[in-house]
């Protein structure tokens, strides 16, 4: 039952990702790989699409995966799944949130969760980095290809613009797309 699987998998993602947005990527990556719903390259492409369209990343990715796997109803199931945990939890704690906010157990759990998210997203950098630079395996012949050096240069420029020039993510997507198109038509990649 594909609709039920979509709902449950995205419910799990919605229920266990703290910090939102990019914090969800490692969990989503694991889930889509497990079911063969999406390749890592496709996931990376979709992150760019999500950055260039309105709305939360979680909603965007669940709608996309849901519709690819199960059409319109699949998209509804996946999106409902990812939204529902937050919705239910907020309704439950909206009345008692002062108590919740000051709970020692919640504070302790948050200590662990805020730390673990850093390690998890850092691991995504490795897996996505490998996908981008060494898509055909880790061999030295890669260094002879112009596409490797092109990706490296684009990556370095975009990182600089993000960290030191405070460029917005949409602008980064547009700029790197433009560089890719120019390089493609001039025969560099």
């Amino acid at each position, binding site marked *: 039952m594909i609709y039920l699987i979509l709902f449950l998998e995205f419910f799990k993602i919605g229920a*266990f990702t703290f910090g*939102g947005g990019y914090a969800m990527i490692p969990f989503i990556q694991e889930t889509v790989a497990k079911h063969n719903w999406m390749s890592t390259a496709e996931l990376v492409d979709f992150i760019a699409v999500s950055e260039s369209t309105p709305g939360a990343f979680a909603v965007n990715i669940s709608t996309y995966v849901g519709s690819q796997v199960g059409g319109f109803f699949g998209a509804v199931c996946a999106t409902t799944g990812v939204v529902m945990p937050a919705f239910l939890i*907020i309704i439950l704690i909206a009345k008692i949130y002062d108590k919740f*906010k000051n709970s020692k157990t919640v504070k302790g759990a948050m200590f662990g969760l*805020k730390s673990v998210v850093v390690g998890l997203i850092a*691991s995504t950098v490795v897996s996505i980095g490998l996908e*981008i630079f060494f898509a055909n395996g880790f061999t030295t012949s890669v260094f002879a290809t112009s596409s490797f050096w092109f990706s490296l240069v*684009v990556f370095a420029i975009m990182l600089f613009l993000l960290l030191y020039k405070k460029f917005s993510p949409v602008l980064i997507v547009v*700029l790197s797309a433009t560089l*890719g198109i120019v390089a493609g038509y001039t025969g560099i990649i």
Partner: protein
Amino acid sequence: MKKSKLKLCLQLLLSFMKIGVVTFGGGYAMIPIIENETSKKRKWVSGEDLLDIVAISESTPGPIAICAASFIGYRVVGVIGAFMATLGVVLPSFVIIFLISMFLREFSSYDIVKYAFVGIRAGVLALIIKAVISMFKKAPKNILAYIIMAVAFALVVLFSTNVLVIILSSAVVGIVASYIARKRGKELK
């Protein structure tokens, strides 16, 4: 349903649809827009409430947009309000992504799109590194936090450990550590 309640539900739906349309990339970028719409314009919540909402969505799972919508909607007209606001914030990105999903795969066979995505993938890697850095800034800064980060990273990269297991373990470690710290008369920060 009373007429005023119905009107409030409609207002919630429309306000949060507007919020869902104008925020790109999601996350904290949404806060100023949510503040403008729900606090300054509609007077549904105070500026202080919004700070609480940010704090709560940081310590509950799920996207910040969903948490904020559910919380504000619940405050205004209860569960039905939470539902309307959440529906509103989800609907725009659901529709947009669903439309995109119908032709994205087909689209990606064009040369120009292929070239664009070669550039974009390198740019996305830079975006993820930026996310690691900003998550790190929000994370606790002590030896235990660094150990959790490093262990989570190593478990995923080297052993492909289940992400859910890692997330839950980190919460348990945080809770246990905070109890131990308090027994020694200290506070875990």
